[in-house]
């Protein structure tokens, strides 16, 4: 019979989002509200920590965790995965006693340290040495314990030279390294680690992961490790807990859980590749659905720069619209417009006076056009004969897709806007014009 380190039974946690601001539409309302404000503010602030039974119907309540039960044995290293807002951090917060559960219970056997961030309590005016002690004691170590490990901690961080300098003079990298080093020398039976390894330089991260790995394999410590990095989950954690929407989706062997999680994520993002529109009989021409598909006609969000991206638009014509044309704009997710195109750019314009019926319009973005990255598509249809000031139908933003560059040498690190592969060529014979240039130079 193995020993249980953490036992969680029907754990639930409820939060009130609360404190939404009301919007005033006139000065009079704002003034009246200002007078009533203190009372309503008092009610709102009191409610933040109060719940009643009928609250389940109220919309500003969310269940960050709902009926979570699982057990972790001593020495087990468990990865916790799930999309943002799944409840991963809430679970760690409850287990580390930062916040209380709303229902259910958990039992923790042994000394717990939680690393929800590194460098908690760091003060810029204190020296590196003072901050090591402060941060260490916040994490539950005693002064004597830190003194014993001090040299190792400082050596590990690599900031020995500056240990008696106020850390406000440190670079942010140095600060993170020092903070990590304190954390790396924590010595609890149970370690709860949130996504803290997401910061700091890669080499140092690897060093910390290595140190964590050592600890895991040698000392039989129990670790719960939240991460979005499936690589480090697979590498460090034999067991994995997948949480989504505050509930457990799967708990078990890491490679299996991670695979299921990834394929689930994939499926979800593919579902979003189609957008549909309600029928509107007022419109002579209307877009009914838009899908982004690959060359096999399968919906996708992720494309290879070497493959075309197709935008399939299902449109319905009720009355032929003279001079109808389509407009497409491709923007990067940071808002920079990369490309505009109109359906009459290369005649014939296929939309002009199209007879009634339902059509599949396909727009192709050829391979090696846009650089790697994320893009958004904007679509509209117009005609100068439209009764409505040119506008015929404006679906607007219809979807987004991602491009990866696998072929070019620099791949996804290639700078710039295009993925075009340029032709580099040695022309065997020097062109005549060059000779004249040479002559001029020599002369």
């Amino acid at each position, binding site marked *: 019979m193995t020993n249980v380190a953490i036992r969680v039974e029907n754990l639930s946690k409820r939060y009130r989002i609360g404190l939404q601001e009301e919007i005033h539409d006139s000065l009079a309302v704002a003034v009246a509200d200002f007078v009533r404000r203190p009372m309503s503010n008092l009610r709102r602030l009191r409610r933040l920590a109060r719940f009643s039974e009928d609250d389940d119907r109220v919309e500003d309540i969310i269940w960050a965790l709902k009926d979570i039960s699982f057990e972790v044995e001593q020495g087990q290293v468990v990865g916790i995965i799930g999309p943002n807002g799944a409840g991963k951090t809430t679970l760690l917060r409850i287990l580390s006693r930062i916040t209380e559960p709303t229902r259910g*219970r958990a039992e923790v056997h042994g*000394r717990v340290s939680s690393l929800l961030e590194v460098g908690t309590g760091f003060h810029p005016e204190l020296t590196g040495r*003072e901050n090591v002690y402060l941060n260490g004691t916040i994490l539950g170590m005693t002064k004597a314990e830190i003194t014993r490990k001090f040299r190792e901690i400082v050596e590990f961080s690599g900031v020995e030279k500056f240990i008696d300098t106020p850390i406000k003079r440190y670079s942010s990298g140095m600060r993170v390294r020092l903070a990590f080093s304190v954390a790396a020398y924590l010595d609890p039976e149970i370690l709860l680690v949130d996504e803290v390894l997401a910061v700091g330089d890669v080499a140092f991260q690897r060093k910390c992961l290595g140190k964590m790995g050592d600890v895991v394999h040698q000392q039989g410590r129990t670790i719960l490790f939240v991460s979005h990095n499936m690589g480090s989950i697979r590498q460090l954690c034999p067991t994995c807990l997948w949480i989504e929407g505050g509930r457990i989706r799967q708990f078990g062997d890491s490679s299996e859980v991670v695979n299921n999680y990834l394929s689930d994520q994939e499926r979800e993002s593919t579902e979003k590749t189609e957008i549909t529109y309600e029928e509107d009989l007022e419109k002579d021409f209307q877009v009914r659905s838009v899908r982004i598909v690959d060359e096999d006609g399968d919906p996708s969000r992720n494309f290879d720069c070497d493959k075309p991206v197709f935008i399939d638009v299902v449109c319905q014509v009720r009355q032929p619209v003279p001079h109808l044309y389509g407009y497409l704009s491709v923007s990067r997710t940071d808002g920079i417009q990369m490309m505009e195109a109109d359906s009459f750019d290369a005649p014939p314009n296929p939309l002009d006076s199209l007879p009634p019926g339902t059509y599949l319009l396909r727009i192709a973005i050829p391979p090696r056009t846009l650089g790697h990255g994320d893009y958004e598509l904007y679509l509209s249809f117009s005609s100068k004969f439209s009764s409505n000031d040119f506008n015929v139908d404006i679906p607007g933003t219809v979807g987004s897709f991602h491009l990866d560059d696998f072929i070019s040498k620099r791949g996804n690190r290639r700078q710039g806007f295009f993925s075009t592969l340029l032709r580099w060529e040695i022309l065997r014979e020097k062109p005549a014009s060059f000779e004249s240039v040479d002559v001029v130079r020599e002369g």
Partner: protein
Amino acid sequence: MTDLGAHGDVNHVTTIEPRSGWRLVDFRELWHYRDLLFFLVWRSIKAFYAQSILGIGWALIRPVFSMIIFTVVFGKLARVGSDGVPYAIFSYTALVPWTYFSTALTSATTSLVTGAGMLTKVYFPRLIIPLAPVLARLVDFFIALLLVFVLMAWFRMAPTIWALTLPFLIVVMMLTAAGLGMWLTALAVQYRDIKHAIGFVAQLLMYASPVVYPTSLIPPQFRLLYGLNPMTGVIEGFRSALLGTNPMPWDLLAVGGGVAIFLALTGALYLLRKERIFADVV
């Protein structure tokens, strides 16, 4: 090797479940975190005077300048009585405990909100946070206290035998600041109004304490009511012990000491009761 504190025991089982109602102070746990208290006090002291030209000199500037202004306004212009000693030393002797009280109270009140980053990231007994400034401000207090003795030498005055009661007076002073500070900081987590109000409330409280005037101005029938403010007994006690203006005000100290203990106990209990929601509402 792990340490053998309250949490060093491998078989130590922590049960986490919803709690409600009042809890008692867990002194074992508090003791385990004593080093944290020490470093928070150190941080508070060092950060307070970091990158300033006068540094710790500020501990003197506040009470000295207040003394000068009060001596001119209340001593010379308004001719407020000073129990037969020069008004300057009369007011300075009061300003030393008062300055401690108001700065400790203000920093304790804002402590939990200022430390919100720690509240939401790590568990440790929350009680430590408001206690740190209460201890840290003692450094300023003792520096300012030294100047009382310099002034006494200047005015050729000797402390009375009651100077031996100073440690007791200091404890009452600290209990008051800590007690009120714990109440207000726990409230301020949820209601930020406290944070905005504390500055001028501290100023108003000064006029409810015998800082610029002597207690002898208070009609006798209101004396004990006045003594409900623990700082009344503390300030009059300082004057009696050092300047010998009046006999030790034991009546005021009994009432005020009782209130101080009451504030400290209820403050700690209230903070512990509210502790479980801090991370959620801060």
